[in-house]
């Protein structure tokens, strides 16, 4: 499934985009959780391939990565699982660049395409280092989603928007992933700013934790990415149905905008 047309069509129908994040391997039944979340109204799902040193992640996703690695989760194991998943929405993998570098960019991109993954997010691969990866992803038909931070100057933000595929990931707050008690003002500002630079869907992630915060940010953004708040629940023993209920609650909040 191609990421960009799928997200554009949904947006152009007036729908706010909801992209939940799940760390692969964080619970034994994570594939069931992914399917249930898809049915609960996700427009795409971010699948975290765990890395030993997740420096952009806060305690929740660090813990999920550790649990997953201790359970023997590997990149190729995750991709094999995704190959047979058929969740009905596009899947986007999120991992750190060393996993890609080690496999080689071309082989990794090719393997993503083979197993039906639509896109990839590499939070430690910024624009100036991303050239050859973006080309490899383009060649394989995989969308390389790039991130813009609140600290990114306008001119650079424009360059990132024009190299990003699928959507533009606007980082909502200066900081690592993790739940926040309230939505940072930088989240809505990010959405408004990026809208001026691109016609791609603009989705905001990092620090969006509740249905209410998701609705707040979507007043200005095309969509949201919700990670730690969901993974936190899964680590605490949420069943796939519980996870789906949480995602369903966010869906409802977005649909009532």
């Amino acid at each position, binding site marked *: 499934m191609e990421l960009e047309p799928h997200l554009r069509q949904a947006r152009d129908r007036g729908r706010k985009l909801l992209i939940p994040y799940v760390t692969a391997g964080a619970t034994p039944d994570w594939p069931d959780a992914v399917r249930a979340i898809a049915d609960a109204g996700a427009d795409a799902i971010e699948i975290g391939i765990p890395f030993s*040193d997740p*420096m952009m992640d806060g305690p929740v996703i660090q813990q999920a990565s*550790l649990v997953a690695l201790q359970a023997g989760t590997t*990149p190729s194991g995750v991709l094999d699982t995704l190959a047979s998943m058929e969740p009905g929405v596009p899947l986007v993998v999120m991992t750190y660049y*060393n*996993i890609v570098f*080690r496999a080689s960019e071309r082989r990794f991109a090719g393997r993503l395409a083979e197993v039906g993954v639509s896109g990839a997010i590499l939070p430690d691969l910024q624009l100036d280092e991303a050239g050859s990866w973006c080309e490899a992803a383009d060649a394989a038909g995989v969308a390389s989603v790039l991130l813009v931070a609140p600290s990114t100057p306008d001119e*650079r933000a424009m360059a990132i928007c024009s190299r990003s595929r699928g959507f533009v990931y606007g980082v909502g707050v200066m900081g*690592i992933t993790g739940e926040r008690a309230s939505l940072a003002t930088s989240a809505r500002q990010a959405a408004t700013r990026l809208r001026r630079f691109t016609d791609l869907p603009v989705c905001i992630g990092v620090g969006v934790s509740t249905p209410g915060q998701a609705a707040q940010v979507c007043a200005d953004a095309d969509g949201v990415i919700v990670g730690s708040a969901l993974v936190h629940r899964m680590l605490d023993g949420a069943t796939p149905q519980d996870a789906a209920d949480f995602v369903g609650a966010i869906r409802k909040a977005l649909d009532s905008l």
Partner: protein
Amino acid sequence: MPAPGPDGRFGEFGGRYVPESLVPACMELEGAFRDAWADPSFHAELDGILRDYGGRPTPLTECSRLSDRLGVRLLLKREDLAHTGSHKINNVIGQALLARRMGKRRLIAETGAGQHGVATATAAALFGMECVVYMGEVDTERQELNVFRMELLGTEVRPVRTGSRTLKDAVNEALRDWVASVEGTHYCIGSVMGPHPYPWMVREFQRVVGDEALDQCRAILDGGEPDWVVACVGGGSNAAGTFAGFVDTGAALVGVEAEGGAAITRGTPGVLHGMQSHLLQDEDGQISEAESISAGLDYPGIGPEHAHLAASGRARYERAQDAEVVSAFRLLAETEGIIPALESAHAIAWVVREAGRSIPEGSTVMVTLSGRGDKDVAQVRDLVGREGSAADGA
């Protein structure tokens, strides 16, 4: 050694692999460093502080008794005599001055053995800055005194309980802090690692070691130069600073890694902590945990310029094992009255092992003694108990 290319690379190694949030800060730092390094008033201030406060220049010591025993002429560059007890102060004073130039009032740092943490805490006290040091929990236990030393200097030490709870995890945690605090905070990286411009900038701040040592060698050797130049390598800052002085001489350059942290000889190419270099990792790219008695060398990576020097053949990288390091630690104490840091003892251990083998008898060998061993005395006591002396067996 030349500056890296505009993309921050030494050959294929280096680069700037950081989250987008940190890119503007890395660019600002690069600009500030280029500007300061071309500014004579910056050099004058830095040199003045290193002289009047840091105790530079440090001496070059001829080791007659150990030389006799080894059959090579051994010279030590005495970074153990610099303020705070290691070469780390050279880099930290430079970075603290830069932070001040950029208007940043808070310093953060990672530390392994605690020497870089102590140096950063010292600079923060000297310049009246706020300071937080991240240190793996394993290291806070084996370097307990250094934790208290940092606290005495007014720094907050935050133990890191994730991952292997050593240096690599402390770097992760410092980077996480920096992503959220970058506006008013300077991340004072302690070695020639991290994203561009750090590997280059830290090497330039440490080149004072090599530049001084070259002049001092020439003075002792009637204008001659050493045949061998040896330094221990964790991230590689004392080695890079040393090599910078000798790279244009005929000396063979040798970096000595810990057996359990040998990123060059046992690692493979990879990307971690902002840089492309050599790493200890598995086939999937998950980073392995280094393992060494010396907290300062307990790191699965190495600075990118060393990966390049190894690839180009200008420097070679060797390993020393924990047991021979402890013997070398004791040997230097007993023969020369110098207790080296366990990190520095790696360089000595390699020379002790190779003198008369790969180092031909009669060679002149200059070793950078990166730090003093006070911090390691309790650990070595626990390791060796109170059996016989090292000199008996060596």
